[in-house]
């Protein structure tokens, strides 16, 4: 019973820790911002171990992926289980451009984002009219289709052989070092998070949240629900493509093995672990779930058992995620539904259609 009581207290403890952190961070805002920038710049010079810089770089990739997926899952409330496919499409676009056409990384990077976004828009237009669970299914299926097309279309993607020898990017003629990779990914991650933040606090973001909270109400307010859904999907896929392009040039060998459905599950888990809908949550989730498996390396064969167990425990104890939607670092206005939505949903005559209705068993 004691253990159970202790477990019960974890959320409370986390909550008070969060409150302390909130108070701290509100008080020392400017110094902290400076510290962050100094931290990013100084990190590879303070901790010079290549292994740590690599882990941090991978963390950056996942921050981009989780933050972008958060637009779909967190803001808009849509289930996408195929984010790794767009990540993979970005990686392959960039790798093929670089190795086949000799295109520079600086052109391949946005190109990969655009191609992934185009695929996202295509999939979005085709499937976003479907019910939530069917959307989950089609995105999962799209992930599988992408993988198998990569494996089967040997003349184009080299199939299971993968693409080797992706060139190291150059910056004004100087080839990238691991420190430059870190600066680039940190920059991309910061841009992504800022972009996601801007979106969230814009007209688009409010429309997306309105759709998440009550689609029917949003529609009756004149929000073009379908259009906004496609927009959200396309934006998220753009960033996934960017992450893929970076990954391809960072690892310099890619194969379909890096873009399995399990990768999509990892990204979605990061979003949920941090707190679905929370910008900070996605970052926290990405950081934790990149570090956790690395820290458990000494367990070797028991590593993934423990990882699974911790995952389940965190979700069961804190279903809203570690940071949660109402996380202290979010602006307070996100806590409330738009007043009109609230007003509409209070009326009992409007059925709750965001939740799928029951069927006949």
């Amino acid at each position: 019973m004691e253990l159970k009581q202790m477990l019960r207290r974890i959320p409370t403890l986390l909550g008070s820790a969060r409150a302390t952190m909130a108070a701290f961070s509100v008080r020392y805002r400017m110094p902290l911002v400076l510290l962050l920038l100094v931290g990013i710049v100084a990190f590879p010079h303070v901790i010079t171990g290549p292994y740590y810089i690599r882990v941090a770089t991978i963390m950056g990739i996942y921050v981009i992926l989780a933050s972008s997926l958060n637009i779909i899952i967190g803001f808009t409330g849509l289930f996408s289980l195929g984010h790794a496919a767009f990540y993979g499409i970005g990686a392959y676009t960039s790798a093929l451009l670089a190795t086949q056409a000799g295109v520079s990384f600086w052109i391949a990077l946005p190109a990969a984002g655009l191609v992934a976004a185009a695929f996202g828009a295509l999939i979005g237009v085709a499937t976003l009219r479907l019910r939530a669970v069917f959307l989950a299914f089609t995105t999962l299926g799209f992930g599988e289709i992408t993988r198998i097309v990569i494996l089967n279309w040997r003349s184009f993607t080299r199939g299971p052989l993968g693409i080797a020898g992706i060139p190291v990017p150059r910056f004004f003629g100087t080839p990238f070092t691991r420190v430059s990779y870190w600066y680039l990914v940190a920059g991309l991650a910061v841009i992504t998070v800022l972009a996601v933040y801007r979106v969230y606090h814009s007209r688009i973001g409010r429309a997306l949240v309105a759709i998440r909270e009550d689609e029917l109400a949003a529609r009756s307010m004149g929000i073009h629900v379908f259009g906004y859904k496609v927009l959200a999907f396309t934006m998220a896929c753009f960033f996934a493509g960017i992450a893929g392009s970076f990954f391809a040039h960072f690892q310099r060998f890619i194969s379909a093995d890096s873009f399995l459905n399990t990768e999509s599950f990892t990204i979605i888990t990061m979003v949920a672990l941090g707190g679905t809908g929370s910008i900070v949550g996605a970052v926290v989730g990405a950081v934790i779930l990149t570090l956790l498996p690395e820290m458990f390396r000494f367990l070797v064969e028991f590593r993934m058992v423990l990882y699974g167990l911790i995952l389940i425990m965190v979700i069961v104890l804190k279903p809203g995620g570690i940071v949660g939607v109402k996380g202290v670092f979010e602006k307070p206005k996100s806590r409330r539904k738009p007043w009109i939505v609230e007003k509409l949903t209070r009326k009992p005559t409007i059925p709750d259609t965001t939740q799928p209705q029951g069927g006949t068993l």
Partner: protein
Amino acid sequence: MKGIMRFSVLAVLTAVLVLAGCGGGSQQATTGEPETIHIALTAPITGDWSEYGVNFRRSVEMGIDYLNANGGVLGRQLRLSVGDTGGSPQEAATLAQRWTSDPTIVAQIGSFSSSEAMAAQPIFDSEGMVQLSPTASHTGFAPGSEWSFGIVGTQAAEGPFMANFAYNDLGLRRIAVLHLNNDWGIDTARHFSDAFTRLGGEIVRTEFYFDGERDFTAVLTRLAATNADGFFMASFFNDGAAIARQKERIGWDVAFLGPSSLYSPQLIELGGTAVDGLKTNVSFFGDDPDPRIQAYVSEFQQRFNARPNFHAALAYDAIILLADAIERAGSTDRQAIRDALAQTRDFPGLTGSITFTPAGDAVKEYRRLWVNSGRFEIWEG
């Protein structure tokens, strides 16, 4: 905006602290014993390929215990660090970075799949550490870097050997091919098919499957409808056993054969009578009277309650070969080890003699083998 900034600061700081924490720990642990020679093993200990990764670990640990019991290498004891990839190429590359940035580690054995080995290759190449893979057979692997070596032998030699076996010894003329759709399976099927066609035979149909599949009835039914007089399966032993059973179930009675990766005592256990008559080849044969092989097999059996297969023997060869190279190099300098390894000539491994080509691939010798009433036997013709 402020919120994010504030939080990110904390997140980065925490991450830095945690990373610094891990770093401090492992540094201390490694500098304590300068006497040992530190070797790394990268393998899929968890995930879909863990069955093979676990065998790697068993064999390499056995090899290290054997070497240490016999005075070690250069008079120093060997020490092993094991890293699990979970089957992910990205993790193999992260491990590569970890091993290369640890100054005590002199060389790495691994990984299992070519995808993992190739993802790690750029790091080993730029940092300068030997990457000795027991099983990676991708044509681009060993030639990809002067630091990469593969000892399994490319399919360029095994394919023609099997084609010759099929055409001349078994008298087959029309063969249907089924292969695992990964780099290894494609290569195996291609080299076999090319050589078989050159001899004058005909490949009537080629089909493939993805790993994880266990239902082969559909594809076998399709292959059975051809007029093939032989069936070549480029599979690992557990898929191979399932294919043989399902082939028997649909009543396709045809001579069948496959590459050395089918050689495993488990093939017979899993395949039962369905694998009787299967022709394959080996460079490692567990029933070989050679005392070294018998010693290895009986110790493996005693320690792990299982008989070693081809992949396990390759991993054992990898560690013994690496120790031999360190001995020949006379130092634990990474460059010296690479140079000594590249000079390897006629190293007597359990999987046959190993000589590296200038690219770093091994040239192997093969022996014809078949399954005769539930036992692997050397094919006498």
